Protein backbone atom coordinates (compact mmCIF):
# COMPACT_ATOMS: atom_id res chain seq x y z
CA UNK A 1 0.00 0.00 0.00
CA UNK A 2 1.04 3.63 0.18
CA UNK A 3 3.32 3.00 3.15
CA UNK A 4 5.69 1.17 0.82
CA UNK A 5 6.74 4.37 -0.94
CA UNK A 6 7.54 6.90 1.80
CA UNK A 7 10.24 8.67 -0.23
CA UNK A 8 7.94 9.22 -3.14
CA UNK A 9 5.23 10.49 -0.82
CA UNK A 10 7.72 12.94 0.63
CA UNK A 11 8.53 14.14 -2.85
CA UNK A 12 4.83 14.48 -3.60
CA UNK A 13 4.28 16.43 -0.40
CA UNK A 14 7.09 18.77 -1.38
CA UNK A 15 5.81 19.21 -4.92
CA UNK A 16 2.27 19.95 -3.74
CA UNK A 17 3.25 22.45 -1.07
CA UNK A 18 0.36 24.62 0.18
CA UNK A 19 -0.05 27.87 -1.75
CA UNK A 20 -0.60 31.13 0.10
CA UNK A 21 -3.51 33.13 -1.33
CA UNK A 22 -2.47 36.44 -2.91
CA UNK A 23 -2.97 39.51 -0.73
CA UNK A 24 -5.30 41.14 -3.24
CA UNK A 25 -7.57 38.09 -3.16
CA UNK A 26 -7.75 38.27 0.64
CA UNK A 27 -8.58 41.96 0.47
CA UNK A 28 -11.23 41.47 -2.21
CA UNK A 29 -12.82 38.47 -0.55
CA UNK A 30 -13.07 40.11 2.84
CA UNK A 31 -14.49 43.21 1.25
CA UNK A 32 -17.13 41.12 -0.52
CA UNK A 33 -18.09 39.26 2.65
CA UNK A 34 -18.30 42.57 4.47
CA UNK A 35 -20.60 43.96 1.78
CA UNK A 36 -22.86 40.95 2.10
CA UNK A 37 -23.34 41.47 5.81
CA UNK A 38 -23.98 45.17 5.27
CA UNK A 39 -26.52 44.34 2.61
CA UNK A 40 -28.25 41.97 4.99
CA UNK A 41 -28.62 44.76 7.55
CA UNK A 42 -29.91 47.27 4.98
CA UNK A 43 -32.44 44.85 3.60
CA UNK A 44 -33.72 44.12 7.07
CA UNK A 45 -34.22 47.81 7.75
CA UNK A 46 -36.19 48.25 4.51
CA UNK A 47 -38.25 45.19 5.33
CA UNK A 48 -39.09 46.54 8.75
CA UNK A 49 -40.45 49.86 7.48
CA UNK A 50 -42.95 48.12 5.22
CA UNK A 51 -43.72 45.27 7.57
CA UNK A 52 -44.68 47.59 10.45
CA UNK A 53 -47.81 48.60 8.54
CA UNK A 54 -49.12 45.05 8.95
CA UNK A 55 -50.00 44.19 12.57
CA UNK A 56 -49.38 40.53 11.88
CA UNK A 57 -45.69 41.38 11.56
CA UNK A 58 -45.35 43.42 14.73
CA UNK A 59 -43.62 40.59 16.54
CA UNK A 60 -40.93 40.44 13.86
CA UNK A 61 -38.91 43.64 14.52
CA UNK A 62 -37.47 42.19 17.70
CA UNK A 63 -36.01 39.37 15.67
CA UNK A 64 -34.83 41.80 13.01
CA UNK A 65 -32.99 43.84 15.63
CA UNK A 66 -30.99 40.79 16.65
CA UNK A 67 -30.28 39.70 13.08
CA UNK A 68 -29.38 43.20 11.94
CA UNK A 69 -27.08 43.80 14.85
CA UNK A 70 -25.26 40.56 14.30
CA UNK A 71 -24.75 41.25 10.63
CA UNK A 72 -22.77 44.23 11.86
CA UNK A 73 -20.77 41.95 14.14
CA UNK A 74 -19.53 39.89 11.19
CA UNK A 75 -18.71 43.11 9.42
CA UNK A 76 -16.47 44.44 12.18
CA UNK A 77 -14.77 41.07 12.61
CA UNK A 78 -13.57 41.22 9.04
CA UNK A 79 -12.71 44.91 9.29
CA UNK A 80 -10.60 44.23 12.35
CA UNK A 81 -8.58 41.62 10.54
CA UNK A 82 -8.03 43.85 7.52
CA UNK A 83 -6.86 46.67 9.71
CA UNK A 84 -4.57 44.44 11.74
CA UNK A 85 -2.98 43.19 8.53
CA UNK A 86 -2.65 46.69 7.17
CA UNK A 87 -1.12 48.16 10.29
CA UNK A 88 2.65 48.52 10.17
CA UNK A 89 2.97 48.96 13.92
CA UNK A 90 3.09 45.31 15.07
CA UNK A 91 1.40 44.82 18.43
CA UNK A 92 0.61 48.52 18.71
CA UNK A 93 -1.05 48.35 15.34
CA UNK A 94 -3.13 45.37 16.37
CA UNK A 95 -4.21 47.13 19.57
CA UNK A 96 -5.14 50.22 17.60
CA UNK A 97 -7.12 48.04 15.24
CA UNK A 98 -8.89 46.45 18.20
CA UNK A 99 -9.77 49.88 19.59
CA UNK A 100 -11.14 50.97 16.26
CA UNK A 101 -13.10 47.75 16.10
CA UNK A 102 -14.72 48.47 19.44
CA UNK A 103 -15.60 51.89 18.07
CA UNK A 104 -17.05 50.22 15.00
CA UNK A 105 -19.24 47.99 17.11
CA UNK A 106 -20.63 51.04 18.90
CA UNK A 107 -21.26 52.89 15.65
CA UNK A 108 -22.89 49.85 14.05
CA UNK A 109 -25.13 49.43 17.07
CA UNK A 110 -26.09 53.12 17.09
CA UNK A 111 -26.79 53.00 13.37
CA UNK A 112 -29.02 49.98 13.75
CA UNK A 113 -30.83 51.25 16.81
CA UNK A 114 -30.94 54.91 15.84
CA UNK A 115 -33.14 54.37 12.80
CA UNK A 116 -35.91 52.89 14.88
Amino acid at each position, binding site marked *: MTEAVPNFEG*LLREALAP*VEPPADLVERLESTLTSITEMAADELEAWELSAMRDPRNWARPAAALVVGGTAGA*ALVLLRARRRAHGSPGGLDGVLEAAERTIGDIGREARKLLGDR
Partner: protein
Amino acid sequence: MTEQASHKPKAQLDAEFSELYRAHLRDVYSYAYYRVGDHHDAEDLTEQTFLQAYRHFERAQRESHGRPLRPWLIRIAHNLAANLYRDRSRKPVSPIDDTTTLTAMHTTEQLVEGRDELSRVLDGVQKLPDDRREALIMRFALGMDNREIARALGRSDGATKVLIHRAIKQLEEIVHD
Protein backbone atom coordinates in the same frame (compact mmCIF):
# COMPACT_ATOMS: atom_id res chain seq x y z
CA MET B 1 -36.18 37.25 21.24
CA THR B 2 -36.26 33.48 21.51
CA GLU B 3 -34.19 31.47 19.07
CA GLN B 4 -35.40 28.07 17.99
CA ALA B 5 -33.43 25.33 19.69
CA SER B 6 -31.89 24.13 16.42
CA HIS B 7 -30.78 27.59 15.28
CA LYS B 8 -27.81 29.53 16.58
CA PRO B 9 -27.92 33.31 16.91
CA LYS B 10 -26.66 34.95 13.74
CA ALA B 11 -23.84 36.69 15.61
CA GLN B 12 -22.47 33.33 16.64
CA LEU B 13 -22.84 31.94 13.13
CA ASP B 14 -21.04 34.94 11.66
CA ALA B 15 -18.22 34.64 14.16
CA GLU B 16 -17.89 30.93 13.44
CA PHE B 17 -17.92 31.56 9.72
CA SER B 18 -15.12 34.08 10.17
CA GLU B 19 -13.14 31.42 12.00
CA LEU B 20 -13.80 28.90 9.24
CA TYR B 21 -12.69 31.43 6.66
CA ARG B 22 -9.48 32.27 8.50
CA ALA B 23 -8.68 28.61 9.19
CA HIS B 24 -9.24 27.34 5.66
CA LEU B 25 -8.63 30.15 3.20
CA ARG B 26 -5.21 28.71 2.38
CA ASP B 27 -6.67 25.21 2.03
CA VAL B 28 -9.34 26.35 -0.39
CA TYR B 29 -6.90 28.44 -2.39
CA SER B 30 -4.33 25.64 -2.52
CA TYR B 31 -6.96 23.17 -3.66
CA ALA B 32 -8.26 25.61 -6.27
CA TYR B 33 -4.78 26.43 -7.51
CA TYR B 34 -3.66 22.84 -7.98
CA ARG B 35 -7.08 21.90 -9.34
CA VAL B 36 -7.23 24.57 -12.05
CA GLY B 37 -3.52 25.45 -12.14
CA ASP B 38 -4.06 29.10 -12.84
CA HIS B 39 -3.98 31.97 -10.38
CA HIS B 40 -6.82 33.90 -11.96
CA ASP B 41 -9.24 30.96 -11.99
CA ALA B 42 -8.05 29.85 -8.57
CA GLU B 43 -8.91 33.26 -7.12
CA ASP B 44 -12.37 33.22 -8.70
CA LEU B 45 -12.95 29.68 -7.48
CA THR B 46 -11.87 30.55 -3.95
CA GLU B 47 -14.11 33.60 -3.86
CA GLN B 48 -17.13 31.71 -5.14
CA THR B 49 -16.49 28.88 -2.70
CA PHE B 50 -16.63 31.16 0.32
CA LEU B 51 -19.67 33.01 -0.98
CA GLN B 52 -21.54 29.74 -1.41
CA ALA B 53 -20.29 28.55 1.96
CA TYR B 54 -21.58 31.73 3.61
CA ARG B 55 -25.03 31.20 2.10
CA HIS B 56 -25.31 27.62 3.32
CA PHE B 57 -23.22 27.78 6.47
CA GLU B 58 -26.04 27.44 8.98
CA ARG B 59 -27.44 24.35 7.32
CA ALA B 60 -23.98 22.82 6.96
CA GLN B 61 -23.33 23.33 10.65
CA ARG B 62 -26.62 21.74 11.59
CA GLU B 63 -26.01 18.74 9.40
CA SER B 64 -22.33 18.29 10.26
CA HIS B 65 -23.14 17.24 13.84
CA GLY B 66 -19.91 18.80 15.04
CA ARG B 67 -17.65 17.23 12.41
CA PRO B 68 -15.03 19.48 10.76
CA LEU B 69 -16.34 21.52 7.86
CA ARG B 70 -13.20 21.48 5.75
CA PRO B 71 -14.43 18.56 3.59
CA TRP B 72 -17.66 20.47 2.99
CA LEU B 73 -15.72 23.55 1.89
CA ILE B 74 -13.52 21.55 -0.43
CA ARG B 75 -16.54 19.78 -1.85
CA ILE B 76 -18.03 23.16 -2.74
CA ALA B 77 -14.79 24.08 -4.49
CA HIS B 78 -14.77 20.69 -6.21
CA ASN B 79 -18.31 21.18 -7.53
CA LEU B 80 -17.59 24.73 -8.66
CA ALA B 81 -14.45 23.62 -10.48
CA ALA B 82 -16.45 20.92 -12.24
CA ASN B 83 -19.04 23.52 -13.24
CA LEU B 84 -16.31 25.82 -14.47
CA TYR B 85 -14.99 23.19 -16.83
CA ARG B 86 -18.45 22.14 -17.91
CA ASP B 87 -19.38 25.74 -18.69
CA ARG B 88 -16.29 26.15 -20.78
CA SER B 89 -16.97 22.78 -22.43
CA ARG B 90 -13.32 21.94 -22.39
CA LYS B 91 -10.46 21.02 -20.16
CA PRO B 92 -8.39 23.90 -18.79
CA VAL B 93 -5.62 24.83 -21.18
CA SER B 94 -2.64 26.11 -19.23
CA PRO B 95 -2.82 24.14 -16.01
CA ILE B 96 -3.61 20.58 -16.95
CA ASP B 97 -1.95 20.36 -20.31
CA ASP B 98 0.90 22.73 -19.60
CA THR B 99 2.32 22.94 -16.09
CA THR B 100 4.61 25.87 -16.81
CA THR B 101 2.74 28.09 -14.39
CA LEU B 102 2.88 25.64 -11.52
CA THR B 103 6.50 24.81 -12.08
CA ALA B 104 7.50 28.44 -12.40
CA MET B 105 5.91 29.33 -9.09
CA HIS B 106 7.60 26.48 -7.29
CA THR B 107 10.89 27.32 -8.90
CA THR B 108 10.87 30.86 -7.65
CA GLU B 109 9.39 30.28 -4.25
CA GLN B 110 10.08 26.84 -2.93
CA LEU B 111 12.26 24.58 -4.96
CA VAL B 112 15.95 24.06 -4.65
CA GLU B 113 17.67 24.89 -7.89
CA GLY B 114 18.26 21.88 -10.08
CA ARG B 115 15.55 19.70 -8.57
CA ASP B 116 13.53 19.06 -11.66
CA GLU B 117 12.24 15.90 -10.01
CA LEU B 118 9.53 17.99 -8.40
CA SER B 119 8.62 19.42 -11.78
CA ARG B 120 8.20 15.91 -13.10
CA VAL B 121 5.97 15.07 -10.15
CA LEU B 122 3.82 18.13 -10.82
CA ASP B 123 3.64 17.27 -14.50
CA GLY B 124 2.60 13.76 -13.54
CA VAL B 125 -0.10 14.97 -11.17
CA GLN B 126 -1.66 16.95 -13.99
CA LYS B 127 -1.77 13.82 -16.15
CA LEU B 128 -3.76 11.80 -13.63
CA PRO B 129 -7.52 11.28 -13.99
CA ASP B 130 -9.50 13.98 -12.19
CA ASP B 131 -10.53 11.94 -9.16
CA ARG B 132 -7.00 10.64 -8.54
CA ARG B 133 -5.51 14.10 -8.98
CA GLU B 134 -8.01 15.61 -6.56
CA ALA B 135 -7.38 12.94 -3.96
CA LEU B 136 -3.64 13.61 -4.09
CA ILE B 137 -4.14 17.38 -3.84
CA MET B 138 -6.32 16.91 -0.76
CA ARG B 139 -3.89 14.48 0.84
CA PHE B 140 -0.59 16.20 0.13
CA ALA B 141 -1.37 19.89 -0.39
CA LEU B 142 -4.06 20.13 2.27
CA GLY B 143 -2.97 17.32 4.59
CA MET B 144 -6.45 15.79 4.74
CA ASP B 145 -6.83 12.26 6.08
CA ASN B 146 -8.74 9.48 4.35
CA ARG B 147 -11.98 10.20 6.14
CA GLU B 148 -11.93 13.90 5.25
CA ILE B 149 -11.11 13.12 1.63
CA ALA B 150 -13.88 10.55 1.53
CA ARG B 151 -16.39 13.14 2.74
CA ALA B 152 -15.16 15.73 0.24
CA LEU B 153 -15.41 13.31 -2.66
CA GLY B 154 -18.61 11.62 -1.52
CA ARG B 155 -16.99 8.18 -1.34
CA SER B 156 -16.54 5.56 1.32
CA ASP B 157 -13.38 5.50 3.43
CA GLY B 158 -12.33 2.22 1.85
CA ALA B 159 -12.86 3.42 -1.70
CA THR B 160 -10.88 6.55 -0.91
CA LYS B 161 -7.96 4.56 0.48
CA VAL B 162 -7.87 2.50 -2.73
CA LEU B 163 -8.18 5.65 -4.85
CA ILE B 164 -5.18 7.28 -3.16
CA HIS B 165 -3.11 4.12 -3.38
CA ARG B 166 -3.80 3.76 -7.10
CA ALA B 167 -3.17 7.45 -7.69
CA ILE B 168 0.26 7.27 -6.06
CA LYS B 169 1.12 4.09 -7.93
CA GLN B 170 0.07 5.57 -11.28
CA LEU B 171 1.96 8.77 -10.56
CA GLU B 172 5.11 6.86 -9.71
CA GLU B 173 4.88 5.06 -13.03
CA ILE B 174 4.41 8.32 -14.90
CA VAL B 175 7.32 10.02 -13.14
CA HIS B 176 9.72 7.10 -13.51
CA ASP B 177 8.89 6.37 -17.16
